[in-house]
C-alpha cells in the first residue's frame, strides 16, 4: 500500500441554497479542491450522497457530476452509508490511491436537502434506521438519539446542562467559521429553553437540514512531495459496523462501531487518543458528541458530558472537538459532512483556519457515522 496525501480542499457556504441546484453546489466545491491542489485532471472520483432519490428525485450521481466537471469518461462512483457516506467516499478514494489503482482521485460529498419539505426530509433521514422495527412504531431520528440520551443520563448521571454545553461550544466555534450555516452563538440556557423535539432533546440539540457539498483531492504522498506545498498525510483509515436497530445493541450507551474503527485507526497511525491535537466528530445531536468522545477514548465511559461543560473540548482546551463548529453549527448536508470534516482537518494541519486555528495542530482525527452508529468511519491525518 502506498502512503497517501490530501493536496486540495474545497467547500462552499452551507445553508438553505434555494437558488442553486445540486449540480452547481457540487461543482463549485469540486473546482475549488482541484484548483487548490494544482492538478490539471483527476483519474477517478467518488461521491458520498445519502439519498439523492428521496431528497431530490435524482440518482446516478456518479456520471451526472463527472459530466458537470467536464471529466466525462473517468470512473465515477456514488458511495452510500447514510450520514457516513462522505467519510466512506473519502476512504474509497484513499484505498484507490493507496492500492495503486489510481493516482489522482477526487473525493466528494453532496446533499441537497431543502428541495423537499421538512416532513419529507425527516422521512428520508429516517431510512437510515430499521424501517420495519423502529420507524414503523413512530420513532424519529431525534427520538432514537433521545433514547440514547435518556439511557446515558440514567446510568451515568449526565445532565441536561452538560448536553446544552455541547451545542453552546460548537456554536461558539462555528461563529469563527465563515462557511457555517448557523454561525450565531447560543447559550446553554437558550438550548435548554428551545422547542422540545424528542425528550430530553430540544431543537438546539439537533443539527440542521442543510444544502452543501465538499471535495478533496488525494494523491500518492510521493507525488505530493514532488508538487511542493503543505504536506498532509493520511495516517489511518478505518471503518466498522454495528446493528442497524438501536434496540439490538448490547449497550445502549456505547457506540461500538466508532470504538472499533478508532481502535484500528490508532493502530495504523501508531498513536493513541493522547497523540491527537484535535478532532472533528459527528455531533448530529449533542448526545452524539458526548458518546463519540467516549468511544474515541478521549474521555472515560460515562464522562463524555464533562467534555464541553469543563471546557476541555473547546478551542484552547485539552482536546478541541469540532473546531469547525461541527454538524451543529456548520450544518449537516448528510453526504457532504464526512468530506467537510477532512477539509477542516487538512486546513487545521496547514495552519489556515484563522480565528478558529488549533495551536500547534500536528495530528487530527475525523469521525463520521451513519444512523445511530450502525456505521462509523474514522480517519487520522497528520502533517508530513
Amino acid at each position, binding site marked *: 500500500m502506498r502512503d497517501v496525501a490530501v493536496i486540495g480542499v474545497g467547500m462552499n457556504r452551507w445553508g438553505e441554497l434555494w437558488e442553486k441546484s445540486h449540480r452547481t453546489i457540487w461543482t463549485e466545491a469540486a473546482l475549488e479542491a482541484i484548483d487548490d491542489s494544482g492538478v490539471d485532471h483527476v483519474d477517478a472520483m467518488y461521491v458520498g450522497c445519502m439519498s439523492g432519490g428521496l431528497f431530490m428525485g435524482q440518482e446516478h450521481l456518479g456520471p451526472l457530476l463527472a459530466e458537470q466537471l467536464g471529466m466525462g469518461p473517468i470512473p465515477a462512483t456514488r458511495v452510500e452509508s447514510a450520514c457516513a457516506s462522505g467519510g466512506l467516499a473519502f476512504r474509497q478514494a484513499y484505498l484507490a490511491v493507496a492500492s495503486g489503482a489510481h493516482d489522482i482521485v477526487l473525493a466528494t460529498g453532496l446533499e441537497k436537502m431543502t428541495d423537499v419539505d421538512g*416532513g419529507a426530509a*425527516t*422521512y428520508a433521514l*429516517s431510512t437510515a434506521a430499521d424501517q*420495519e*422495527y*423502529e*420507524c*414503523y*412504531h*413512530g*420513532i*424519529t431520528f*431525534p*427520538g432514537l438519539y*433521545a*433514547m*440514547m440520551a*435518556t*439511557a446515558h443520563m*440514567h446510568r451515568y448521571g449526565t445532565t441536561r446542562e452538560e448536553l446544552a454545553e455541547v451545542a453552546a461550544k460548537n456554536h461558539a466555534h462555528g461563529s469563527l467559521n465563515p462557511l457555517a450555516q448557523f454561525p450565531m452563538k447560543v447559550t446553554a440556557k437558550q438550548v435548554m429553553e428551545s*422547542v*422540545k*423535539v*424528542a*425528550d*430530553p*432533546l430540544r431543537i438546539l440539540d439537533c443539527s440542521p437540514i442543510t444544502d452543501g457539498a465538499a471535495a478533496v483531492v488525494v494523491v500518492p504522498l510521493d507525488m505530493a512531495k514532488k508538487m511542493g506545498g503543505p504536506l498532509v498525510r493520511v495516517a489511518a483509515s478505518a471503518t466498522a459496523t454495528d*446493528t442497524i*436497530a*438501536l*434496540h*439490538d445493541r448490547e449497550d*445502549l450507551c456505547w457506540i461500538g462501531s466508532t470504538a472499533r474503527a478508532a481502535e484500528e485507526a490508532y493502530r495504523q497511525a501508531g498513536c493513541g487518543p493522547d497523540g491527537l491535537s484535535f478532532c472533528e466528530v459527528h455531533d448530529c445531536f449533542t448526545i452524539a458528541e458526548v458518546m463519540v468522545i467516549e468511544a474515541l477514548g478521549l474521555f472515560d465511559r460515562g464522562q463524555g458530558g464533562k467534555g464541553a461543560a469543563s471546557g476541555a473540548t473547546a478551542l484552547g482546551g485539552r482536546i478541541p472537538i469540532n473546531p469547525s463548529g461541527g454538524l451543529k453549527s456548520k450544518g449537516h448536508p448528510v453526504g457532504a459532512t464526512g468530506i467537510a470534516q477532512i477539509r477542516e482537518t487538512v486546513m487545521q494541519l496547514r495552519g489556515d483556519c484563522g480565528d478558529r486555528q488549533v495551536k500547534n495542530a500536528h495530528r487530527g482525527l475525523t469521525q463520521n457515522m451513519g444512523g445511530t452508529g450502525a456505521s462509523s468511519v474514522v480517519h487520522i491525518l497528520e502533517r508530513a
Partner: protein
Amino acid sequence: MIGSARYWREIPQRYRYEASKCTSCGKVFFPPRLVCSKCQGREFAQTVLAKTGTVETFTVIRVAPSGFGDEAPYAVGIVKLDDGVKITAQIVDCEPEELEVGTPVRLEFRRVQQDGESGVLCYGYKFVPRV
C-alpha cells in the same frame, strides 16, 4: 409508504410476536433471520416473544413523522422482554411524564399507524405499564 405486500409479510411478527431461536446457542431473534449473529448457526426453532418486560430507555416524541401527527406527544421506548429480547414500540395508556427507566410493561395488540399512505391500516404491538 407501507404497501400491502410489505405490510402482510411482517404480520407473523406484528400480530403473533413470532421469533426464532438458534438451535446451536439459544439466542432469540426478532424478527427471525437466516444466520445467527452470535454463533453463525443456520438452524432455528420457531418461538414466541415474552409478553412482559421493563423499559430500558424511552423518549417522548413531540415532532412526529407522517402517520403519527395527531398522536403527538407520545412515548416510544426500548423494552427488554423477560426472554432477553429488546424491541422498540410506543408506550401507551399512561402519562409520558410518569415513565421511568425500569417501568414494568406488557405487550398489547393495538393500531400503530392511523393509516398508511396506500390505505393499509397498520396494527401491531404497543407497551402498556403494568400496575
